[in-house]
């Protein structure tokens, strides 16, 4: 009984945090892209547009929910449901932190640990294609169908280098359970180099990391691989005919997939919740970062570029300083610091996703396929062979 209650509470917390992150990831994306393009980004709803996600949610819920007359009704309604379910499902096996003690209970910061965790993620991500493919087909629209076909072909092609890139670090850690993968990456070589698979002897998994990230971009249909929804050729691709919450669920699925890919990358290659530096340095870096952010905000609040900044920036500065103080509390250290490192690494990868979107143009379709089959796949096989050879030698 206790187990069920704890599991329910954990699931509730994870679902709440995940959905909030989904909403705010979109705000971050719009802000970052705007600043890359020398614009302001959302700035009307709330200070610095911080309430924009809330406004978007209200807009999407209250919009008219169109059901076009020419669609295959059952599959048209099933597709967004499938997409969002498959996207949210994989978060259930991701470990966010080590075992912690809360009010006398020992529990892992993870919903469930499977001894086939990596395979589970692969299975779920390969099922995610159905949402997109069915949406395009059931819409009964040329552009949507083209988008769905492209998406299916692209996701099947990029799953191969992705699986091979996952297999290489698994040779170093010798397990398929995500929790054990992270635990195998604890410790430091030479006293300072983290024992993450990306730095690990005998063969640092740097190439797998790059291959996995590229394939991850393709699997999540992000620029430069966003051909399924290429606006200038396909209107909006597979979700052309969707409106209101059904459209929003595709949007949510895309962002949830981004978060999953980023967390899996962190777990497989960047040591999960393990800190960057050993001992005291690892404990002091997080509060230092927040304190620095807080001080920068306070400084800019005292020398405001715009009138509004005089009030908003000091508030943010104080919040950051408060977070820094919380990170220093010894009692909370065991809970907060691993979470910080996991979130910081995942956030850095998510920022890379957005950065790439603001920087790179879209591939041509034949280039996309040629790249997957003629370059990425052979390189992934070569990387796996070399890793296997080195592991066998040592």
């Amino acid at each position, binding site marked *: 009984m206790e187990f069920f209650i704890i599991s329910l509470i954990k699931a509730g917390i994870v679902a709440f945090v995940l959905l909030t992150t989904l909403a705010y990831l979109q705000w971050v994306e719009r802000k970052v892209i705007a600043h890359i393009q020398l614009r302001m980004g959302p700035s009307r709803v709330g200070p610095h547009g911080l309430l924009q996600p809330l406004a978007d949610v209200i807009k999407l819920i209250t919009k008219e929910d169109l059901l076009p007359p020419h669609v295959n009704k059952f*599959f048209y309604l099933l597709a967004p449901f499938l997409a969002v379910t498959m996207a949210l499902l994989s978060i259930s096996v991701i470990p966010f932190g080590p075992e912690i003690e809360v009010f006398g209970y020992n529990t892992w910061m993870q919903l469930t640990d499977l*001894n086939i965790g990596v395979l589970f993620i692969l299975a779920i991500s390969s099922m995610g294609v*159905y949402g997109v493919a069915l949406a395009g087909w059931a819409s009964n629209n040329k552009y949507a169908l083209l988008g769905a076909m492209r998406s299916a072909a692209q996701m099947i092609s990029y*799953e191969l280098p992705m699986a091979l890139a996952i297999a290489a670090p698994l040779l170093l850690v010798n397990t*398929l359970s995500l929790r054990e993968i992270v635990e195998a990456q604890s410790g430091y070589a030479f006293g300072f180099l983290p024992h993450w698979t990306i730095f690990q002897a005998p063969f640092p998994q740097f190439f797998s990391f790059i291959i996995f990230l590229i394939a991850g971009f393709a699997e999540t249909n992000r620029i430069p691989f966003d051909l399924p929804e290429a606006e200038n050729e396909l209107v909006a691709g597979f979700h052309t005919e969707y409106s209101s919450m059904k459209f929003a669920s595709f949007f949510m699925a895309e962002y949830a997939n981004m978060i999953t890919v980023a967390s899996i990358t962190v777990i497989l290659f960047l040591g999960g919740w393990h800190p960057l530096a050993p001992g005291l340095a690892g404990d002091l870096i997080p509060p230092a970062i927040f304190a620095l952010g807080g001080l920068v905000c306070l400084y800019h609040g005292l020398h405001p570029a715009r009138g509004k900044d005089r009030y908003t920036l000091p508030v943010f500065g104080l919040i950051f300083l408060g977070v820094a103080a919380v990170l220093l509390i010894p009692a909370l250290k065991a809970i907060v610091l691993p979470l910080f490192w996991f979130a910081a690494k995942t956030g850095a990868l998510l920022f890379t996703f957005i950065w790439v979107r603001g920087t790179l143009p879209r591939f041509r379709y034949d280039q996309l396929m040629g790249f997957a089959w003629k370059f990425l796949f052979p390189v992934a096989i070569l990387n796996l062979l070399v890793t296997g050879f080195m592991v066998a030698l040592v």
Partner: protein
Amino acid sequence: MDVILFLAFAAFAVVCGINVVLQSHPISSALSLIGVMGSLAVLYLLLGAEFIAAAQLIVYAGAIMVLFLFVIMLLNAGSEAKRGRSLLVQFMGVPVMVSLLGLLSYFVLRLFPAAPPVRFGNFRGGSPRSFGEVLFTQYLLPFEVTSVLILIAIIGAVVLARKEID
């Protein structure tokens, strides 16, 4: 709990299997087949074969059925037209099928009368580690021969496709 889950997913598999035949549209049939494969994966999981369950999902539901769906969409196959059935099928279809099932179950019961009943959780050895050990020691030859067979099939497909283009 195990029995309830087994009954639920076995029933789902059977319903989906019947649906594959009943549906007139190829996409609906393909999706029902995915349902069958998904529930089979759950049944494997219940029996303690985690790796087989994951492989079932990745390979069959995730890869092969996506290709099926892809081809159906590419050809833009519409619903099958229902043709008039012959009298023989109309009247004899169900009795013949029932008697076939009866015969099959009779022979199974006759041939394996003392087979021990399946118990959930008895089987240990479905983990990827033990699976890999068996695959690379006891069944190494069949495994390698199968992989060569698949390689031959791939090369054959490439050769056939090339001829078509020329």
